[in-house]
């Protein structure tokens, strides 16, 4: 009985190695014929066009008016000296 169990063990281990070796072969074939392809990079977002000098003065005027309204002051009471673009 003990010898039978030894034989069963040897046979079963052989079968397991055989089956898993076949799976290794399958994986190798699959990977060979279907290699990983890098997905195409998403199209870059076009950068917002830098405002021209005329646009910038209109922007400053608009911000100036909104700020004056928000602060409850007259537009002449303060001035915007600098806008840092980000």
């Amino acid at each position, binding site marked *: 009985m003990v010898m039978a169990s030894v034989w069963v*063990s040897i*046979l079963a281990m052989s079968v397991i190695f055989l089956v898993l070796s076949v799976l290794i072969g399958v994986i190798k074939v699959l990977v060979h014929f279907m290699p*990983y392809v890098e997905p195409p990079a998403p199209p870059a977002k076009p950068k917002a066009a830098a405002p021209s000098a005329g646009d910038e003065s209109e922007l400053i005027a608009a911000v100036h008016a909104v700020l004056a309204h928000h602060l409850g002051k007259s537009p002449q009471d303060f001035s915007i000296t600098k806008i840092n673009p980000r």
Partner: protein
Amino acid sequence: MEFSLTDSIARIAGSTGFTALGGGQVVMILVSLTLLYLAIWKKFEPLLLLPIGFGCMLANLPLSHMAYDAEGGLFNLFYWGVKHEVLPPLIFMGVGALTDFGPLLANPYTLLLGAAAQIGVYTTLIGAVVLGFNLQEASAIGIIGGADGPTSIFLATKLAPHLLGPIAVAAYSYMSLVPLIQPPIMRFFTTPEERKIRMAQLKPISQNVKILFPVASTILCVLMLPGVAPLLGMFMIGNLFRESGVTGRLHDTAQTHLINIVTILLALSVGSSMTAESFLTFNTIKIIILGLLAFMMATAGGMVFGKIMCKLSGGKVNPLIGSAGVSAVPMAARVSQKVGSEEDHSNFLLMHAMGPNVAGVIGSAVAAGVFLSLFGDVSAGHAVLDAVPEFLLASAQ
């Protein structure tokens, strides 16, 4: 009808469970309380040991009709799912849905580590035969070394249903003890230099390969070992739900609600099989000892093969990933990572260890398939293989 207060009190007292409570049941209730303690306060596989413990407690409360063999009882119905191999394969489907084959596909040679770790199954098989079990019982005990609860339950139900309770408890208990059992063995088999080996980053795998692998491996494995179909087939369909990308709802269900529901039913059924008559035997002690041997030998087998792969690859494989070949997903892989990081904090072995870890699941399912081919209830397709045990027995005499 004449009413007698004394008779009525005696009748009520006689109908309580206390009158039928035996010593064996008291011991089993204590065992169930121990399992509950381990699950709740020690966090040993609580998702399984808690329902197993409670199922065991209910089954051993006299006159409750909650034992697995109580005709018409609730757990008798649940047990139907174990007896007719419904529940363990459904668990496998959930595990498949949770499994990423990417690391295995990126380094397919780690499948051999999953095969090598099955040495624990077969040394335990031999040990069980030495201790007086027959080959069917020894096979069911040996599969504990596969460190895979559903496979252990599946095979025990097929080959040794009377040993289901102790086998399931041993399997799940030792699985929870993997972080304690494995590290000393891993350190014993490796040098600090080997534990520091850094492995190359895994290559990415195309989605088509991930989709085709479960299909191709199912066809091949089931053709080679038809007995493995319920476990491996369900494991692979669960994975196909995941990888196909077209069955999101099925994938979600399989990996969450379904696996949780089936775990409850399976664990309660296993607990209900732990009756005093079936559990309180000398065989249970033998199985608990053999289960520990199975886990230790499986770890050692994976480590030895890991060292062989390390030598053959010129030091590119860290042998610590070999211990993950014992299944127990993902705990065994985490143990490889932990032991490796003790030597080098910036060495990340987890993904490399997931390859052999997943290979261990396939390996233990294949080992179960081999046992079923040899000793199972053979159908027409198995008839040719049924001659093998006789040949083996004849050659051994």
